[in-house]
């Protein structure tokens, strides 16, 4: 189980990187960045997970309900989801402008910053 759980984290990050490196379309690339980003959320929640633990919400539970999972990692992942959304939206706005101004979305054809 550990291998599967932690393997998914590494896999998502690396496949996201692969997508960024090989992408021929900026919009595609931005979505690939968000795939890599989701690896971090998965990692945080996995670190905070406790087998058999219940959600850290204490509504109408028996007096000694057993352990809840780590609420702290959930709070961090929550922040990270928002950060990821903000960055993705910003990158998409840039991509739209690039298409208007450079006439292409292929990152390998963007030459304005080429040395």
């Amino acid at each position, binding site marked *: 189980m550990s291998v599967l759980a932690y393997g998914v*984290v590494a896999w998502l990050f690396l496949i996201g990187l692969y997508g960024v490196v090989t992408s021929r379309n900026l919009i595609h690339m931005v979505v690939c960045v968000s795939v890599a980003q989701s690896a971090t959320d998965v990692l945080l929640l996995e670190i905070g997970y*406790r087998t058999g633990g219940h959600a*850290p919400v204490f509504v109408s539970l028996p007096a000694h309900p057993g352990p809840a999972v780590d609420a702290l990692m959930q709070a961090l992942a929550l*922040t990270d989801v928002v950060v990821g959304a903000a960055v993705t939206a910003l990158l998409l706005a840039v991509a739209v402008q690039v298409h208007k101004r450079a006439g292409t979305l292929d990152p390998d054809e963007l030459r304005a910053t080429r040395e």
Partner: protein
Amino acid sequence: MSRRARLALFAAAAAALAVTLGAGLAGLPSFGSQLTSYARLLNELAPRQRHVTDVVSAITFDYRGIDTLFEEFILLAAVAGISVLLRPLSDEVRELPEDKAPDRAIPPPSPAVWLLTVLLSSLLALTGLETVTHGVVTPGGGFQAGVILASALYVIYLGTNYRTVERYQPAPLLEASDGVGAFGYVVIGLLGLLAGDVFLSNVLGLGGTGNMIAGGTIAVLNLTVGLEVAGGFAILGSEFLDQTAVIRTKSRRR
């Protein structure tokens, strides 16, 4: 680098990084076996100290409230940045599709579509309000509620047309909501200072655990975040919508 050289270098680098990550991940405690004492402590303290049932809310808005303050400004900055990026530039014009062909007026939506639109958007708005007010009790809070509220506006677009959306979402109001929400978070933080305590300390009554109005500042901060996110996401959506619907590049020869 040629594409092939890049791919070769990436393959080697990614393999090395995979080994690295694997070594690190292998050092983690096995999945589901650990609960840090910090996490235990917070799960134990939060309901008692803050009279909330959703510990994540207590952490987000109280124990680690300063993180969330900055997180709100990440969103504010992204929205401001998108407004800057997608502003109509000097070689672009805003024109509604109708203006182009005045003889081909878009037919008004049928009453059934109208009804569905009103129903669905009110439903979304209610869900949003429900989510934001129950932030201290159940999962969900200002952020999720804000996005849901903003999406209510887009249902109106789906059901009607762009003119209607423009009428129902006055840009100054959305911007003000975005700004007031973020400013409100700072002000509530400062209230703690004014009360002679520290920034972001809880200055309001805590209320009863499980009650909707509990957690003191946590509930109020949820509201400010909801306000900010709703305004922010509505602006964000409308900027992209503007690009698609009404912003045209003036025709010119390069």
